[in-house]
Structures are given as C-alpha cells and as structure tokens.
C-alpha cells in the first residue's frame, strides 16, 4: 500500500503546486496576496470547457487559447483593478480585500453563465489506471506530476536567466532601486501577472480534466495552494512547489493513520506550525526577511 500512498501524495502535491507556483510568482514580485488567482484558474477551466465541449474546437487549439485567455485575464485584473488602486496608494489590506472581491465576482459570473451543475471536459475517458511499481496511476495523473516538476525547473531558469526574470527579482528585492536603474515597476508587475496567470491556465487545464468543473473550484484550490505557498516560503517559487508537495504528503499519509475527517485539520495544523516556528517557510533561509 505504501507505493499507492506515495503516488496519491504526489498527485495531490502536484495539483497544489500548479496553483501555488503562479500565485507565488505574483506575490514575490508584486508583494500582495492575489486570491483572485483562484478565479483565474476557475474561469479559464470553464473557458476550456466552452471551447472544447460547447464550440467543439480541437483539444490542442482549446488548450492554447485557454492559456492565452488566462494570461489576458490576469493581466486585465492587474491593469483595470490593481493598478488603479496602486495609483491611489491603496494599502496591502485594500488590495487583499479587492482580490477577494474579484474571486467572488468571477465565481458568481461562472454561476450565472454556466449554472451550478458539475461540468466535465470529457477529453480523457474514465478508465482503470495502470500499475506502476505497485501503485495505480492514470496517464493524466503522470502528466500532472510531470508538468508541475517541469514548471518548477522552467520557472527557476526563467527567474535566473531571462531579462524579465532578473528584472522581476530586482523589483521584488527593492522596487525603488530597480526603478532608479531604469526598470519600470508597473511593467514588471504586468509581466508577473501575465506569466503567473499563464501558469494558472495550465493548472486550469489539468485540474479541470482531473477534478471536473464547479463554480467554487477556485476558492477550494486557492485554500490549499495558498497553504502550500506559505509552508514552502511565500515569495519563493521553488519553495511554493516544495511546500505544496509536503502538504500533499502530510495529508495523505496523515489520514492513512488518522480518521480521514482530519485531512483539512492536518493541512492547517502544519500551516500553524510553520507560521509559529518558521514563518519564512522551508526555503526562507538566507533571504532578507523584510
């Protein structure tokens, strides 16, 4: 049973990581909690459903459009809402409340447009998974784990090697100094939203295929993704991915020994422990704790 438990943990962790990495990227650059990231995921998942199941577009095209749509949606949220608030010198708390409002707004919009029923994208047929070293796993679940790991590597190189990535780190480190050397913080914020939301689009596709669609899926995903990001060290993208996997492991191994009703309790107990004893998270070492 141990291999299966390991696989279950990896799948859960990978899904949390898909949510946490985009969220964490936006947080580390813009320094505020963008809860509406969950809305980007949910709305993009419904967009994929609309393209693929309603309009009958090919799956490949639908996937590409969904990722573009997610980027655009995130960028618009920043441009239309957050930017205006920043210009009025809104505090972090105001931005946080705004992100909640956006999340609820988009969930209500989904409810209005698509109704409360469960929706399935129906691209992957439900079938028995295949045996892999004593555990059962489906092809889609392998893709989810692989994508989340590849994303981790890609994001690492993006932040370290590309011009935009370096500029993002510069703004994250010290916005004023970055602006002095000619980096436009507003531009970099836009980029953070575009890249972070594109990851949300990828998450939307994979989570939508694996878990079906529901209007409130964004909130549920965000709760676990946020927890993973905090455990891993908010502001550090690799940390967020690591924290998400740790969360997946803790939950699944936890309820193997404890009654399964404690699943969420385990997740939040870990969150509390980290907040109390290691608020900078797993990968918080050596970072200047501003």
């Amino acid at each position, binding site marked *: 049973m141990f291999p299966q*438990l390991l696989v279950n943990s990896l799948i859960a962790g990978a899904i949390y990581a898909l949510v946490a990495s985009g969220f964490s990227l936006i947080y580390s650059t813009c320094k505020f909690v963008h809860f509406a990231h969950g809305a980007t995921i949910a709305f993009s998942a419904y967009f994929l459903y609309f393209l693929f199941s309603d309009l009958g577009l090919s799956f490949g095209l639908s996937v590409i459009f969904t990722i573009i749509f997610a980027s655009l949606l995130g960028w618009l949220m920043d441009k239309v809402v957050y930017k205006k608030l920043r210009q009025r010198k809104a505090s972090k708390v105001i931005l946080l409340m705004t992100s909640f409002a956006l999340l609820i707004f988009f969930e209500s919009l989904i409810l209005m447009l698509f109704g409360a029923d469960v929706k399935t994208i129906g691209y992957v047929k439900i079938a028995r998974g295949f045996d892999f070293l004593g555990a059962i796993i489906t092809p889609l679940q392998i893709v989810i784990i692989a994508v989340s790991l590849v994303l981790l590597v890609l994001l690492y190189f993006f932040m370290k090697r590309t011009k935009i990535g370096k500029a993002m780190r510069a703004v994250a480190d010290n916005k004023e100094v970055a602006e002095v050397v000619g980096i436009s913080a507003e531009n970099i914020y836009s980029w953070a939203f575009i890249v972070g939301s594109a990851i949300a689009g990828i998450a939307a596709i994979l989570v939508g295929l694996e878990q*079906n669609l529901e209007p409130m899926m964004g909130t549920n995903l965000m709760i676990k993704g946020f927890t993973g990001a905090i455990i891993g060290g908010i502001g550090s993208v690799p940390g967020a991915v690591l924290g998400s996997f740790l969360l997946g492991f803790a939950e699944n191994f936890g309820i193997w020994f404890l009654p399964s009703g404690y699943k969420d309790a385990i997740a939040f107990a870990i969150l509390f422990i980290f907040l109390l004893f290691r608020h900078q998270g797993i990968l918080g070492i050596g970072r200047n704790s501003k």
Partner: protein
Amino acid sequence: MSKTLQIIIGIIIIAIIVALVFVFGTGKTTEGLVKIGVLAPLTGEASQWGVPPKEGIELALELIKNRVDNKKVEVIYEDTQCDPAKGVSAVQKLINIDEVDAIIGAVCSSVTLAIAPIVEKSEVPLISPASTSPKISDAGDYVFRVVPSDALRGEVFADYIKNDVGLNKVAILYINNEGGAGNKDSFKKRFEELGGKIVAIESYAQGTKDVKTQLMKIKNQNIQAIVIVSYPADSVIILKQAQELGLSLPLYFQTEALEDPFVLEAAGESANGVIYILQADPSGREVEKFENMFEEKFNRAPALYAAEGFDAFNLIIKAIKECKAETDLSSCIKDELYTIKNYQGVSGTITFDGKGDVLKPMAIKKIIENGKKKVLMIK
C-alpha cells in the same frame, strides 16, 4: 374644547375600541369559520421551496370552494424567509392574533424546529410540507410532516442491504456535513441493529476533489460493499477515482444525487452497476389529475413541494371533517392525523407514524449502462 376634555374623550374612545376587540375579536374561532395558517419562505433565497407549497395550497383551497362541511375556510400566509426568528414571530401572530386551527409549515428545517415548541405549547397541529431534518421526529406531538425524514432513507437502505442483498460487512464513505453525518448515522444504527457490521467509516469535507486515500483505506478492509453518502459533484469524483483505482467492490449510494442527469453524464461508464436509493415517484390517476389541474391554474408544471403543500392542506381538511362535533378543533385534528393510514396523496402514499413522521415508499434503483436506470425494488 379644553385639553383635558380631549384627553378624556380620547381615552374613552380607546377603551371602547379595546372592549369591542375583546368582545368580538377574541374567543375561540367564530362559528362556521376554520382558519389555517401557512408559514413558508415566500421571498428570499429559499422561496424556490416556499412558493410551490403555497401554490399547492391555493389549488386545494379552490377545489373545496373555500368550504368544509358548512364552514368557511380561511388561509393566512406568513413569510418566514427561512429565518427562525421571523418564523417565531409569524407563528406567534398566527396563533395569538389570527387564532388558527392548524398550521402548514415551515419549509426550512431550522424554522420548523424553532416554532415546534410554540405550537406544542399552544396545542395547534402543524404539518411541514418540506422539512427533512431527523431532529423534527422528536420535535413534539403536534408536529407532523408529509416529507420523509432523512433518517428513513438510511433505515430502508440498511434493511435492503442486510436483508434483501444479504451483505454483512460494509464500509461507509460519507460527506462530512450535517446532512451527510445524519444519513450515515441512520444507516449505521439500523444496519448494526440488524446484526450487520460496519468495518470502516471514512469521510471527506464538502468540496473535496480527492478521495483516493480514503478509498484505498476502505479497499484494504475485509468488506463486501461500500455505502456512500454524497452530493452530486463528489459522487462523480468518487465514481471516477474508484474506477481508476480498480476498485471492484459494489457501490451503494445513499443519495438521490445519481438521479441527476449531469452526474450520470459526467460519470459515464464508471456509474454502471451502481445501486442507489431515493423516494419513490408517486404515480396513479390522482397524481396525473393534480398535475393537469396545476398546469391549468399556474401555466407550468408543479415544482418540488407543490404536491406536498396540496396534500398537507387536504389532510387537515379531511381531519376537520371527522371532527364535526368537537369543541376543541385543534386537538381533534391532531388526533385524527395520527389515524391516517395509506392516504393516497399526490406526493405519494401517506401514513403517519407515532412521531408524526410520514412513511413513504422508497425506490432502490440500479444503473444498468449509459445512464439507463432500472427500479430494483420499492420498499
């Protein structure tokens, strides 16, 4: 006119009005008039469950031409908005000011539970057309309902699985909220009373999308079947993940969720062979007649609980007919309701048990394939 005189005249007028109200307004119902109060959420979020019973009652009132025997029937509607506090003031008004003989309501279980002690104390019988909480069974002698308690489903299902299918060892997987836990408890209690054994109980939070580890824990036990209490969205997830994990145990769903066409479509082949339980569809000439009359009056098909409102009203009228000579009409209605057996209502066959709960037949269905269903048994 001096000011003192004005005050004195004012006081006299008020005194006369108060005296008149006392003489004519109170005292048990005026001869030849029966009053029935209705408590339902007529506005607000829950109005989708409150308006249909009202419409059912309006239709029933029209059919008896506002009269029972030689008495006029008056129906007084009060809006509760599914709020226990509003329900309590509304029931106080119905009992103390309108002095109704019987009440139909409330719709939301929370409101029915809040007003139960008041009707009990005032000895006014009440029939709820829609409250399903198991707690209402013990809410009082004067409290009835024409919808089965959530507990009934669990009891009948336990009976079916233990005695008709002949399984002795099962595991339960349930959604951890009030409804889910209540359903689980009623199944567990009955199944163990019958000598069955619940080997494992696992749960998940509402909104969960991953039950793989729970299913694995159950799979490892020595059991014959899994009993599942779930909502529509998670039913799909459970079916999908059970299929993916190659779980070959029979699944018994103690929920009407599988009746939802969206669920069947989403679950596809993974739902094949699943057995589930829900209230049996009422059928027969009376039901058809009701549906036709309803459509004629309201220009649309009756929504959920319209038939229950119709039946609750007619049951009270039937009881009043039996209570011709009684001086205490309210208590008599209560006593008569307890004697109702196999009443052919439009919401199903109605028999009240000793707690005022209705016993209605349950249907056990099986999904054959491609979303096609077959009724295995009516119990």
